[in-house]
């Protein structure tokens, strides 16, 4: 079975519909599926709900789909550094569900693992707990959080073999792995496709069972939000 598609538009063909829930990987601008997000924008699909740790920044990542008003709702843990997001949110044009970062990651992991809900201490006694079941285990309060079952997963990986076994690079793994597992269909963009047999089976981060479609997104011009460096000591 061929999982490799010639373009992002081709890989998304037949998968997009108005009002759908998309789980997207990335942390800030690190490891965002930028080619696929661009193709979602170009498709014109609207009323989207995104489960994603962040909403990109102005004109990067999901930020591009905010500008075109294709996003109805964000499920995210942090949405700073994004003026258009702020404007739409304050104007009541965009719905936001804040989910603590670890809870959001676990909601994706749980959804991907067929677990509809789980109890966590995170958020007990806070606004996050409002409207949620509280259960006492061994004398401690926990709240019920729901797994995320997305219509589509959009993910960025470093390398894939032809069967969709994935390897991520450094901290670009982040939400890409749990997001990949929780969609009915997972589309992945990678920097490089390598032949079967060239990835060490002991070092696969995400097995190809989770991956239905892939594109090669290279070349990438990866963005950095905050460049921080130190000076070399004189020799």
């Amino acid at each position, binding site marked *: 079975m061929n999982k490799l598609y010639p373009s992002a538009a081709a890989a998304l063909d037949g998968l997009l519909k108005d009002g759908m829930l998309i789980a997207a990987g990335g*942390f*800030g*601008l*690190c*490891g965002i599926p930028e080619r696929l997000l661009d193709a979602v924008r170009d498709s014109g699909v609207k009323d989207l709900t995104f489960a994603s*740790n962040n909403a990109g920044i102005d004109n990067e990542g999901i930020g591009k789909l905010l500008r075109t008003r294709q996003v109805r709702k964000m499920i*995210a*843990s*942090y*949405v*700073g550094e994004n003026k258009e997001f*702020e404007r739409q*949110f*304050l104007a009541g044009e965009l719905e*936001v569900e*804040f989910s*603590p*970062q*670890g*809870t*959001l*990651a*676990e909601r*994706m*992991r749980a959804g991907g693992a067929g677990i509809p809900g789980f109890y*966590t*201490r*995170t*958020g*007990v*006694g*806070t*606004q*996050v707990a409002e409207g949620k079941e509280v259960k006492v285990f061994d004398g401690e309060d926990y709240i019920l959080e729901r797994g995320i079952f997305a219509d589509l997963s959009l993910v960025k990986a*470093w390398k894939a073999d032809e069967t969709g076994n994935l390897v*991520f*690079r*450094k*901290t*670009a*793994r*982040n*939400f*890409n*792995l*749990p997001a990949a597992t929780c969609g009915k269909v997972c589309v992945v963009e990678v920097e490089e496709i390598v032949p079967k047999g060239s990835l060490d089976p002991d070092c696969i*981060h995400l097995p190809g069972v989770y991956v239905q479609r892939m594109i090669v997104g290279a070349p990438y011009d*990866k*963005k*950095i*939000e*905050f*460049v*921080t*460096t*130190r*000076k*070399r000591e004189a020799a």
Partner: protein
Amino acid sequence: MTIHDHLAKGWTRDQMAARAARELQDGFYVNLGIGIPTLVANHVPEGIEVTLQSENGMLGIGPFPYEGEEDADLINAGKQTISELPHSAYFDSAASFAMIRGGHIDLTVLGAMEVAENGDIANWMIPGKMIKGMGGAMDLVAGVKKIIVVMEHVSKNGDPKFIPACTLPLTGRNVVDMIVTDLAVFQRPDHNAPFKLIELAPGVTKEDIRQKTTAQYIE
């Protein structure tokens, strides 16, 4: 009082970080928040090895990279470029918060807008202002073994920040173990005990603390 006298009283941001760093123990796995908590990394006591966790998926945070060696795939939770160490390890966000929620991280140091006498903390939103989100703060305070708050003793308006009950929306309920301010250190042995004033910054008196604290604590 001269400006010099004013500066001499209490701890600087770096001294607050150094005080928090004295709580580090050899072999600790530690998560540091943004701001003054980040400075704690510069004050790890000699002979002690700690491993820093970044909640976006890394253990063993190295220093900022040399100019020209920045890597967009290697950032900390503040989205700054960092470097790796020989013992660094990468993992996904679900695994990262599994180790936080599961109690495998020994210590976290974070900032706060308010801490209450019962250990409640508020540090993620101010009603009426743009809400950016809690990020990983709620997970950290709920899951890490020991929670140290580093904050100014009073707000910019001079209002106490260690108070009877938080007025801002909570980040966590009954979670704080220690408070390091620019004036003093408070600690409690467990989450049923009241906070105790255990240390005063240079030039600060117990009376100064009484005047700038509305929370109940043991002297």
